[in-house]
């Protein structure tokens, strides 16, 4: 009986939290900005902090994942005498799946956790309260620029990840394993379509950006303003963000590429 009661109360708490999160997102997105110049100034600062500072981890990860993919792909394709198709395999895998998914997972770990911790610490040190008491809405000043910066940066980082991954794969496949450069690029060009593969990958990255950044800013704003509370909120951001990316990926892949 107690377990049923526990499941019921946990479900209700989760639903209530989801509802609060929805209202929070609505209020963040639909408010009048003070002025365009102030919006851009705050946004550029956040794009630097969320996006530019994430470039190193994205580029290095993309490079190594592209190189590993080329190695693995070559080993398997060579068994069927199709090693020339490694470029095709590399591009489709990166653009459709690994680019958006791995970038979003890295983004959740690097940028979103920092967003939660930063907002949580602002709450704990009464900086959010002081904004409110000054008549400055924290949704406009703190939350919205961070959320929008996440929506802009993640799709761009995903493109950078895929591009660097393809270059890394080319380095291994053409430069090291001796695949002909012309075949590598021409097969890739023949099989990759902008409207389906590239655009769908960007749409996926955008959906992941909404989910992870929303979770990050909401967890930061709602966290208990103590060191343990901020720690728990940061962990929740990474765990919930990663799980939502993987679940969304399945749904989006089924909708975009499923043949049913």
């Amino acid at each position: 009986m107690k377990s049923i009661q526990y499941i019921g109360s946990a479900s209700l708490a989760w639903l209530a939290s989801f509802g609060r999160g929805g209202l929070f997102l609505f209020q963040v997105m639909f408010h009048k900005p003070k002025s365009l110049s102030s919006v851009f100034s705050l946004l550029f600062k956040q794009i630097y902090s969320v996006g530019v500072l994430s470039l190193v981890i994205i580029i290095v990860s993309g490079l190594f994942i592209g190189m590993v993919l080329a190695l693995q792909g070559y080993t398997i394709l060579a068994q069927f005498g199709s090693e020339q198709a490694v470029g095709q395999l590399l591009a489709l895998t990166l653009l459709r799946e690994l680019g958006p998914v791995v970038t979003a997972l890295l983004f959740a770990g690097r940028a979103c956790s920092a967003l939660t911790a930063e907002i949580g610490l602002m709450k704990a040190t009464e900086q959010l309260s002081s904004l409110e008491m000054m008549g400055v809405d924290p949704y406009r000043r703190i939350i919205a620029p961070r959320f929008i910066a996440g929506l802009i940066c993640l799709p761009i980082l995903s493109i950078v990840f895929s591009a660097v991954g393809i270059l890394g794969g080319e380095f291994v496949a053409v430069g090291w394993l001796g695949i002909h450069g012309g075949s590598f690029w021409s097969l890739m060009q023949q099989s990759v379509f902008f409207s389906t593969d590239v655009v769908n990958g960007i749409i996926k990255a955008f959906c992941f950006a909404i989910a992870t950044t929303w979770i990050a800013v909401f967890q930061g704003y709602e966290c208990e303003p103590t060191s343990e509370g901020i720690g728990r909120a940061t962990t929740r951001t990474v765990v919930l963000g990663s799980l939502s990316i993987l679940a969304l990926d399945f749904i989006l892949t089924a909708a975009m590429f499923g043949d049913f």
Partner: protein
Amino acid sequence: MSNNFVDIQNMSFYRGDRAIYKDISIQIPKGKITAIMGPSGTGKTTLLRLIGGQLKPDSGDIFLDGKNVPYLSRKDLYLVRKKIGMLFQSGALFTDINVFDNVAFPLREHTDFSEEIIKDIVLMKLQSVGLRGAAQLMPSELSGGMARRAALARAFALDPELVMYDEPFAGQDPISKGVVVALIKRLNESVGMTSVLVSHDVSDSLSIADYVYILSGGNVVAKGTSEEIRQSNDERVIQFLGGLPDGPVPFHFDAADYQLDMNMHVNDGGRLK
């Protein structure tokens, strides 16, 4: 037209089952300094948050400049707050910008002043709290007392109609404290600022306050001018002003019997391991 800038009527506020305020009424007159005093844990900071609309009372009304704060929409609440400056206990300076930008923050948010004018205003405010030379320092480079003085400069940067000071004298050396006391008084006299002063510092608070409320156990136990409070015969007021450990105001938070709680028995013979 009421002469009260803040008018709290029959307000109750609970945290869980614990009553922080039970049906209290407090009036903060316009252009005067009102000190709110009382033992730790009485909910003095909570009262400031209720006035500022950061907390909602369970019952009763809180009128701020004629507007009933708990019933305002989010948009109207933010409009009303533009009339308020607040000094937080922790200072609550923005840690990513320097002292100058912290003080300039409300000016940039709520006015169309040019940077030239903002610079002059900020330096004047910083001069008044003795921190003009620290304008370019980051909050992390300030001592606790300096951070609170910088926050004080930010609280009255816009010359708001109401300033709420939460423990403005805490952590200040005697010279700084004297300056802050004089500054609060001067702001009140020169621009007619309404001030709410939450403090434990009995002598300094009474020296500048026009009216004093003493809170304890969720109720107003005494109110009046500083002189009336000093002359009060109420045991609770005498205990609080004199800092006496024994009296009707308990030093200890509500708790079970000490001996039972510690599992102490006279013939137990227990010893430390």
